[in-house]
Structure formats: structure tokens, C-alpha cells
């Protein structure tokens, strides 16, 4: 990264330029879509869950720098976590891990949190049909 001036922290720019876990998971356990193009951002979160552990997380995001960086950071934070641990990841935690976001961009981190909540809900619903399985 060049040292050019940016409205974002170095960490945000790093995750924007070199997003971690960008892509799709072909055999994802859950895929959650949040946001829409009219709002200017949309995130698709893919989780692969095995025995209550998130073994893989990937994303595709249409949106601004903050939206892409928070997507990237969220997937980093999710990988290897138990569902219980994942549940407690807040948008503030994602923003803090990126060394903060401009106030006007905090809603982008909310989108990442919403994607996580939706993915976990979808997972729970899919598990309710399977008696005796792990539930969050």
C-alpha cells in the first residue's frame, strides 16, 4: 500500500485492498444476504459449520471501502470460532479490530453484524428440523 492520504485507517485500507476470505464456499452450510443495491451496499456471507464450529467463512460484498473491509474482518474473526463465540461478535468489535471507522461509516459494520445474525438464525432454523443437533 502506498502511503497516500485516505479517510480510513491503514487497517481498513489493508482489508479493502487485500480482502481476506473473499469468494464463495461451494458447500457452505449457510449463505446469508443482507442489504440491497438501492442502499448502495449488499453483503453475502458464506459459513461452513461442522460440529458447532465455523470451519470456514467467506464473503462477497458490493459496497464502499468500509463495507468491504468489515466483511473481510468479520470473516477473519469468525474462522475457527464456536457458534457460541461467534454470537457475541458485535459490529463495534469488528470496527475496533479495524482500528475504527469514520462515524458516517459505522452502519457498514452493522451490515456485517446483520449478516452474521442472519446466517446464525438460518443455521438454527435448519437445525431445528434435525433433533438432537447442536443449537445456539
Amino acid at each position, binding site marked *: 500500500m*502506498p502511503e497516500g492520504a485516505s479517510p480510513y485507517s491503514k487497517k481498513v485500507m489493508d482489508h479493502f485492498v487485500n480482502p481476506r476470505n473473499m469468494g464463495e464456499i461451494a458447500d457452505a452450510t449457510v449463505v446469508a444476504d443482507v442489504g440491497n443495491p438501492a442502499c448502495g451496499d449488499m453483503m453475502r456471507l458464506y459459513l461452513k459449520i461442522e460440529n458447532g464450529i465455523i470451519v470456514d467463512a467467506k464473503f462477497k460484498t458490493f459496497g464502499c*471501502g468500509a463495507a468491504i473491509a468489515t466483511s473481510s474482518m468479520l470473516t477473519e474473526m469468525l474462522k475457527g470460532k464456536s457458534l457460541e463465540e461467534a454470537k457475541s461478535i458485535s459490529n463495534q468489535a469488528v470496527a475496533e479490530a479495524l482500528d475504527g471507522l469514520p462515524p458516517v461509516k459505522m452502519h457498514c459494520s452493522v451490515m456485517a453484524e446483520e449478516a452474521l445474525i442472519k446466517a446464525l438464525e438460518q443455521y438454527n432454523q435448519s437445525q431445528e428440523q434435525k433433533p438432537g443437533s447442536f443449537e445456539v
Partner: protein
Amino acid sequence: MQPDAQRNIYFDHAATTPVDSRVVEAMLPYFAERFGNPSSHVHSKGVEANQELDQSRETVARLINAPAETIIFTSGATEANNLAIRGYLEANQERGKHLIISEIEHYSVINLCLKLKREGYDLTLLPVDNLGLVHPDKLNAAMRRDTALISIQHASSEIGTIQNIKELAIIAKEAGIFFHSDAAASAGNIPIDVVDLGVDALTVSAHNFYGPKGVGALYLKPGIKLEAQIIGGFQERGYRSGTENLAGIVGMAKAAELALTEMPQRHEHLSGLQQRLWDGLSQKYEFLHFTGHPSQRLPGHVSFWMEYIEGESLLLFLNVYGIQTASGSACASNMRGQDEHDLAASHVLTAVGVPAEYCSGSLTVSMGKGNTTNEVDYFLQIFPQVVERLLAMSPLWADKLKGKNPYQ
């Protein structure tokens, strides 16, 4: 692809231009040597300053073919627009309570008129066609017996379209309605003749044609009454009090002088760059759509929107590669805001019919006299790589590749 720290390509001249070094040189003596106050017209320093003020007024007037005494120096285009509009309404209250502006005016006109609406004025926002032009018949239809004022910009900094001001001003003149035009984006960049255009008032901004920020001017046709908006002493014939920003005014005059002599060659150079960029982008992507008028537009100005890609991420990525451009994307609109309510997609793009779900993917490339064909070629080399990166991240593009319409 590796970010290029060496590159520093400024393609955002619609936002502001670099001050020409000859302008800086002309301004320098007016800080510490010729620092006099033009109002101190008895002693030497004051007389010297007053003479320079008069001379600058003449030069700036010449830029728009106006008599010197019609020029009121202001702190910039925003103040000039406020002075023209509110100043006219206050001084001519018998003229009525109805205002007409176009949908694609600058915020300094739109937000002022929205405030006037809250204060009791009726406001008509004239629609533009999909190339950004205001049609004379639309203006004709909107005019009422109590229409006090019409304000339509000369050119759009966002989509580049140049209005047919002459046609519109004639309609206003026949009806006896005051006609103002905000020429902040165009003055100094394309020829302007206020007599030929037939306007009653016209706004000029120095920093859009290689002059300094913080200085602009309002042309006011003789015989028209305006109420001052900044009250104080007697500067600018009482229309705009406050000790003159002489260094800025001298800079504006120098920039105007350079624009007058160099405009033909700048125009030719910029038209070449514009064509090169346009040719390099058109035909390349079926999901890239140009905005504004294809030929009746500001020189060196190319604007478009793209599907599947968001504008701020496009700007950021281009900036990583050393290319500075602009976007009408909501996300890029107000980074210093308090929260997301301070973000809004460009009203100009929605006015020319770009659907809200696509407004976020807009880009404005505005080149200046210092840009080169080499820089355009670098842009054309980097741009497809950036687009490819962002498409790879886009869930909308992924859906499109799977045959789904992601915008439904």
C-alpha cells in the same frame, strides 16, 4: 497488480483545480508588500491597492465580456449564488413568491431555495432530460404571473452537460423575469459572453479555472436591484461589505487573463484527452453507461455509472493506484458526516434518470490543462484491473453470471 506509489494523477478538476504557478506569483506581493486596504484611499498603500482592485475587476469582467462595474467580488460561488438569489428577492419583494430552478443545481442554489421554500416561497424544480438539458418548453410551462426569479446553472460539474442558457434566458426576458445562471463550473473553461447569453446575473468561481479558493464574483446587469447579504462598510458598492481579499482577487484576475489567452489551446488539449478516454471506455463494458450530453459538455469531462460496482470502492481503488477522481455515490458523499443520514446519492444522477440502485456506481473523471495522454493511457490500463477486482467481490456480479437479475 502492484499499487503505484509514484503515480499522482489528478482527474478531479470539477472539484477544484491547482492554482497556476503564474497566478501564485502574481498573488505573492499582495500579502506582505502591497498589503494595503483599498478603502484607505488617501495614503499610498491604499491607493495602490485600490488601483489593483480596479484593474482586477476589469480583467475578470473581460472573461465574461462584461463592463467592469458589473462585477461584485465575493468569497466564492456559494456566496455569489446566495447574493444573487436571496439578494434579488429581498430587493424586489413586489415581484412575487415563486422561484424556478433546475433539478440539477449545485447545493448552494438547491439548499438555499429549499430554505426559501420553508420561509414561504413556492419552488418549482425544472426536470432535465436524460442528457441533463433543461427544455425551453418546460421552463415556459413552469413560469407564472408571480414568478420572481429563475436560476439555471450553465454547466454541471457532475455530468458535464452545458445548458442552452441563451434560449432559456430569452424566455425569461420576454416575461420580464430575473434570470441568474451559476457558471461556477464553466467560467474560465469555456467562452462566456454575458451579453450574448442574455443573463441578468452570473456566478463565477476562481478555483475552477486555476485561481485560488475563497474568491469568486457575481456579474450583475446594470439597473437591477440587489439587497446586500453581508452588511458592513462600503466595499463592492455596498453589495458585499468586508475588506477585499485583494491577494485572492489579484489571483482570480491573473487566472482570468491566462484563461482568456490560453482557452483555445486548453480546449483543444482537453478535447483530445476527453475523446481518448471516452473511446477507451466505450465498447469495453456493456454495463458502463455515460452520463450527460455526449458533445455539449465541459472539455476534459467524462462521467458514467456502472452496474454491479459501488462508486466509493471504485474511487478508493483508483486512489490506491494514484488516480484521483470523484463519485456521486451516496457512500462517497460526505465522509465528515455524523452518521449515515448525512449520506445521500447524487440528486443530479437521479434527475437524469439513473435508478437509485445504480446511482452508487457513478464516476466523474474531470481532466485539466496539466494532464497528459500518458495519464489517460495509464487510467485505461488500471481501470479494467480495478473493475475486475471489484466485480470479483460483487455478489451482484456473481448473480448476473449465474443468469439471475440481481437488481430485481
